[in-house]
């Protein structure tokens, strides 16, 4: 699981291995462990990528899947 921008500040980490069988399972584990981070991840502006592809619904995860939570983006 990867966190970017302000989400990494909320969590205090940016990369961790977490056992989870699906995105919903992963969110549940986060909710149990860090409700503040869980709430930050639920914000509508936060997008989710699994193995570097954007997803909008729940998806199952394989061993080694990379889940990234992306807060509002700003470059330039």
């Amino acid at each position: 699981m990867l966190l970017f921008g302000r989400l990494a500040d909320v969590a205090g980490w940016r990369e961790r291995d977490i056992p989870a069988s699906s995105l919903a399972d992963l969110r549940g584990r986060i909710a149990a462990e860090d409700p503040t981070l869980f709430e930050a991840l639920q914000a509508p502006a936060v997008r989710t990528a699994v193995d570097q592809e954007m997803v909008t619904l729940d998806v199952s995860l394989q061993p080694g899947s990379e889940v990234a939570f992306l807060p509002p983006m700003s470059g330039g």
Partner: protein
Amino acid sequence: MTQAPFDPGLALGEFCRDRRETGAVASFTGLARAEAGQTTLLELEAYPGFTEREIGRHEAAAVARFGLQDVLIIHRTGPIPPGEAIVFVATAAPHRRAAFEGCDFLMDYLKSRAPFWKKETGPDGARWIEPTDRDRDDLARWETQ
């Protein structure tokens, strides 16, 4: 993407070299602003692999939409002090309108949709920058045309 400072003038010179069928090159350079001392450092974070791919998709869209011959995008990541270049975009086309518009389109995309996260540090601490309404309006111009 690069963590090291780059010279936008040098990049533009190289981009213009050996072009016999290009009538127009437009370029944009974005610099880190000091905001009257309120910003002492900008930090740009990317998602390596994903960020390059997403930029590549929009570059291809710009090439198709405006009939560009070539595009160069350089984007800094990591800590960037005021006065240094953050981003450089150059577009090449047979005529100027396509070059201008392609460059404008790519910059609007980079400002508010490309996978970068920007943190501003100043005397009062650090804060994450999110796209402004103005940035979103700028991007929306391309959706209605």
